[in-house]
Structure formats: C-alpha cells, structure tokens
C-alpha cells in the first residue's frame, strides 16, 4: 500500500515536470490572415505586391461597430513567402495562414509569375489545400478593399460566394483550389479560375480566366462559361433561359436540378473525336407570354427541343473558342486520352496541341422538363 502511495506522489510530481507545450501559442499573439491578394508590382519588374487581409477578432462582436473588423497590409517582395516573412517587421503578432480563405491573383501576375508562388503554398502544412483561388481582372488588391453589407469582411464574402454560388448561377464557376492547381501542375493540364471584376463599386464574379501551362491566356464571359461547365460535367443545379419561337411565346426560364454528363474521347481515322452525352433535368420557373392554344404535350416537346438546340449551340461555341483561340483544355481531355488510348497517346504526345486543335465534337444533348410550376403553361 505504501508503495502505491509513493508511486502516486511521484506521478503527481511528474505532472508538473512534463506540463509544457512547445507549440502552444496564445491566440492573442496570432494574426489570422484570411485573404491574400497577389499583384505584379507597378515599379519593379521582378517584384510582386502581396496584400494580406488580417482579421481583428476584437471587433467581431457587434458592439464595436466603429472599427473595421479587418485591416489590409501590403508588402512588396520577390515572392509570397518573402512577403509573409516581411510581415514580422510590421507588427507584434505572428502571422498565421491556418484560416486563410481565399487567394486572389491579379491579371498581370497571373500572366507571368503565377507558378512561382505555388511551391510555398503546397509545402507549408499550415495552409489548407481547399483554399479557393480567383483571378481578378485588373488589380487583385482592390477586391479586398470592397465594402459589403452582408458580411463585413471581403475575404469571407468572396469565399462564401465561391463555395455556394455555382449552385445557383451557371455563369459562376469554381472547381479549383490549391490542391487542384497542384494536380494541374504535376499532370500538366489546363484549367479555368473564376473571374472577379469590380464594376462600379460592385463585385461581379461571372465568367472565368483561362489558363494554359499555368499562365493566364484569356478571358471567358458568363455565357461561355455555361458551355464549359456542361462540357466539364460540373453542373449540379442552376438556371437556364431560352428565347422561344414566335408561335410558342417570348422566353422561358428553367430551374435545372440535375445535369449528368459524360465526356469520352474517341479516335476516328487518326483524328480525335470528343463525344459528350448530356442529360439535363429541370422544372420551368417562367414562360413569358406562352401560347396556351397548343396542347401541353406538344408544347413541352417543342420546348425541350428548343432547349436542346440552345445548349448545343452554347457548348459548341465555348468548345471552339477554347480550342481555336486559347488551345487550352480544361476538361481533362488529355488525361482521358492517356487512359483510353495509351498507344495513341504515346505516338502523338509531342503534337498534342495539333491533335486538340483538329478535334471534332459530337454532342448528344437530352433535356427533360419534369414540371411546370403552379400555373398551366
């Protein structure tokens, strides 16, 4: 019994000796970076301007309305990691990237140095690979200075938009994060990042920036993004409008609740043929000035046909633009070709650009209208 007591005392003592933690940091000592904007520096050619958006946790409570809940700090340095270290000479807190929500890259920066930043973002464990990335027409810094009514911090607003809005609007795209860009880099495939513009103090996040070989090569507007998203097969839900022919009515709007697509490459006579099967299901939310004379079955049939033609045109247009103008392939077509036809790929991997440029597109689009809402057509 005595022995047990002694052991107990000893273990109590040990508790005092061993209670320490090297990695413990007081939360007050941390500066939480919630957004990063990367721009090319106006004066120095090599350097970049990095803007960090840092949260002020003290003002999160609604009482301290007078103060802004964040502040921005800009650093000029050769790259992101240097700028991150430079923060140490500006403030008393330790900058932490754990809660970083978004990374925005400016147009000029995306055209030239985009790929140099990636390594730091991937090698550091602190930053999550699910961080959203957007490309800004003009300067990325300006986006972080915007004022919003709903949420006070721009980084949070944009990150929520990127998380949610592609489920409502087909013109908004977001399928890339840092991890995705890492995949793009190692496998050498192209991608599209969501485009952000400031339009008279208002934010506009439709459309996208097209990347080839990790560099920005051009822009797509919202209309063109719709086609790309159907090709990629990343549409969950959204709204699709169409102009009706005169005897049917004026225009219509459909709420797409499911879109299933599968894209497969095929080799025909030594030429690449891209086959897309697409099935769209939706409910009508608006039929303006519908012709009520025609019976329901026929009306819906013709409406479906109109939609099919419209979607086909959109896809065709976007595909041609990506193929001819940018020669960029954001649909993982290259990877699919590698998997489907390894022999063909081995022979032709040197002139992939040519193979892609001469590729044909075969579409099979089916639109199914399930319901027409609360009033008859």
């Amino acid at each position, binding site marked *: 019994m005595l022995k047990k007591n002694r052991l107990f005392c000893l273990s109590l003592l040990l508790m005092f000796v061993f209670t320490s933690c*090297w990695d413990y940091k007081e939360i007050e000592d941390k500066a939480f970076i919630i957004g990063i904007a990367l721009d090319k520096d106006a004066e120095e050619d090599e350097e970049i301007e990095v803007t960090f958006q840092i949260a002020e946790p003290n003002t999160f409570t609604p009482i301290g309305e007078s103060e802004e809940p964040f502040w921005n700090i800009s650093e000029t340095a050769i790259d992101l990691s240097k700028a991150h270290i430079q923060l140490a000479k500006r403030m008393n807190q330790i900058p932490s990237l754990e809660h970083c929500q978004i990374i925005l890259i400016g147009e000029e920066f995306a055209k030239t140095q985009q790929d140099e930043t990636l390594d730091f973002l991937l090698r550091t464990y602190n930053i999550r690979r699910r961080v959203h990335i957007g490309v800004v027409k003009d300067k990325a810094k300006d986006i972080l200075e915007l004022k919003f009514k709903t949420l006070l911090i721009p980084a949070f607003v944009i990150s929520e938009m990127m998380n949610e809005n592609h489920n409502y609007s087909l013109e908004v795209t977001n399928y890339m994060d840092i991890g995705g860009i*890492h995949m793009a880099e190692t496998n050498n495939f192209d991608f599209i990042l969501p485009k952000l513009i400031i339009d008279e103090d208002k934010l506009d996040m439709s459309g996208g920036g097209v990347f080839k070989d990790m560099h920005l090569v051009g822009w797509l507007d919202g209309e063109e993004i719709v086609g790309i998203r159907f090709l990629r097969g990343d549409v969950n839900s959204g709204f699709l409008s169409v102009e009706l022919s005169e005897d049917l009515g004026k225009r219509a709007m459909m709420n797409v609740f499911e879109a299933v697509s599968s894209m497969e490459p095929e080799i025909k006579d030594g030429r690449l043929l891209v086959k897309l099967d697409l099935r769209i299901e939706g409910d009508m939310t608006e039929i303006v000035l519908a012709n009520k004379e025609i019976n329901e079955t026929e009306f819906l049939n013709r409406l479906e046909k109109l939609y099919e033609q419209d979607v086909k045109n959109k896809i065709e247009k976007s595909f041609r633009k990506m193929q001819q103008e940018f020669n960029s392939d954001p649909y993982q077509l290259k*990877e699919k070709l590698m998997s489907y036809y*390894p022999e063909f790929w081995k022979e032709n991997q040197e002139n992939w650009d040519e193979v892609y440029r001469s590729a044909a597109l075969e579409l099979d689009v089916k639109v199914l209208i399930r319901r027409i809402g609360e009033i008859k057509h």
Partner: protein
Amino acid sequence: MQNQQKGLSNFQVSALVTLSAVGMIIISIPRIAAEQAGIDGALAVFLAGILSIILAGVIITLSKRFPTKTVIEYSQEILGKLFGKVYGIILVLYSITVLSYILRGFADALKVLLLPRTPLEITMICMLLVILYCVHGGISTIVRTCEIFLLPLLLVIVLTIFFNLSEVQLFRYRSSLSNGITPVFKAAFGVTTAYLGYEILFFILPFIQDKEKFMIFGIRGTVLPVLIYSGLVFVMIGVLGPTTTSELVYPAIHLARQIGIEFIERFDILFIIFWILAVFTTLTSYLYMASFSLTRVLGMRNYKPFILILLPLCYVASILPQNISEINMIGKIVNYVGFFVALSSIPLLIIAVIRKKGGKANAEKE
C-alpha cells in the same frame, strides 16, 4: 504470469497481427505505390498483400510444429545451436533497425504535420517511454492495447476511404496494366514493407489459448491490412492520379484533409491521432520481438531488464540519420531485409521437415 497462463484469445491474435502491420507507413504507402507502379499501384499493393498472407501462412505452419516454443528456440533446434543463435541475433538487429526507422519516420512526420516547434528528441523519448511501459506489462498487455485500438483505427481509415470514394475518377483505371503485368510484380516487391510486422507470428504461439485455430485467426489478422492498404491506394490514385500522388510526401493525410464534413472541419487531425495509435502498437510489438529474442538467445527467461538495455540503443539508432533522404534509404533497406526475414520461414520449414524436427509425431516422442 497469471494472465499468460490464460493465454491470448482468438480475436486478440488477429488484432495483434493487424496492428503490428498497420503502422507508420500508412500515411505514405500511396506515394510508395504510385512511385513504384504508377496507375497499377493498388494492384501492386494487393499482390504484395497476397504474398504477405502466404508468408504468414508459412510462418504459422512452421510455428505449429513447435507449439510450445518461439522462433528463437526452434530455430536452434532446426539449424543447430550455432546457426540458430546467429539467426536469433539477426532477428534482434532487424527488429531494432525497424523500430528505429519507424520511430524516426514517425517523429519526422509528426514534426511536419502537427508539432513544428517541439524538438524531435522529445517526441521520440516520450514515445519510447510509453512503449517501454506497455512492453513491460508483457504480451498480454500489448495484445489488450491492440484489441482496444483496432476498431477506432479501422473506423477512421474506412471513413477516409468511404468519403473520398465519390471523387474517384474511374476513367483513370482504364489504362491499368497498359505496360503488362511484369512491372506490377516487380513493384509488388517494393511495397512489401507496408505489411512488415506479421513476423510477430513467429513469437506468439506459446501464449495462445486455442492453438488449433491459430491458422485461421493469424491469417485473418493479415487480411485486414491488405484490404486497408489496397483500398487506400485505390482511392488515392483514383482521386489525384498517380503523378500527383507520387509527389506528396504524406498522401494519406492529404486524403483525410479533403474530407469536409459539416461538423468536423479538420478530419486530418482525427486521422493523425489514430495513426499515432497505430504507430504505437507497431513499435510495441517490435520492441517486444527485439527484447524477447535477445533474452532467449542469451538463454535467459525474463526479458524485462533487456528492454531497458535496448531502448537507448534504439534511440541512438533513430537519431543517427541526418535528413529525409537518408531515412528513405534506410526504409528501402528495411523493406528488403524484412522481406527476407519473412521469407526465411520457407527454408526453415523445409529443413524442419527434412530433419524431422517438430510436428505432432515428434512432439509425442519428446
């Protein structure tokens, strides 16, 4: 001693074998597989698993010829006193090397992933003290620890696989075996390291309650790691593709980090916690093997003092490598040595049959 008389139950045997095999390597096995076999990584891991099951079967058959002895004693009987002792010493050295390699790999990974400012030595010493405590309790303590850890560990890994299943891009697997089956077999030998740990089967038969069912439950213990690893590699390569997978140092953590369930934002932390438990059980079984073999080679019974002698050795061995590339090199060596140790059960079995050592008939004679 009372516990040992009662012996290990069947489930405990399976749990011990599974958790000895599933260990440190689980966070990097997709990378190793993708490096070696590309898109066929999962198949290579699966083939290596089949191989390990067969070898485990051989080890069990061999052990069953000597139901009351461990490998150290019956190797002396089979090979003669001198060679048997040499074999025992090889086992000791091998166990120490694996132990140090795992310890160092574990501490390094932990420093990168979780505790960047904690000194490496502290992590290692703490781990060593804990495994010392566990091994000091004897085989029954080790086994009961495994029994407790098995289910939560399985749960976390299965969840990781399950939640990523929907993101697997199946089209990647269309080009499987495009280079033929031979490279896959070659790669399979490079990933046998994943299953190392089933050597514990050499040691446990004398402590088992139901010796007749040793075969069934021992094999069951080796089947689980095969399923876990193949599933993990299949999902990983399906999600990220072989090139990206081979670029990540700790790919499984990345897989866990991809999961975003509503109420658990950082699933990777959960994964790391249970991974630490897996490493812990692997380390305990290797320390047990090392100290037990050393004791029996020297002809003594009580192995507990020898743990204290071996621990500093292991510690020194594990701080010797200077950087990650040296550790990886040791990893490769361990892979082959471990494979040959497991493989050595085949010649041992053959010699035992030829020299008519062990087995039921001979046991009765003795």
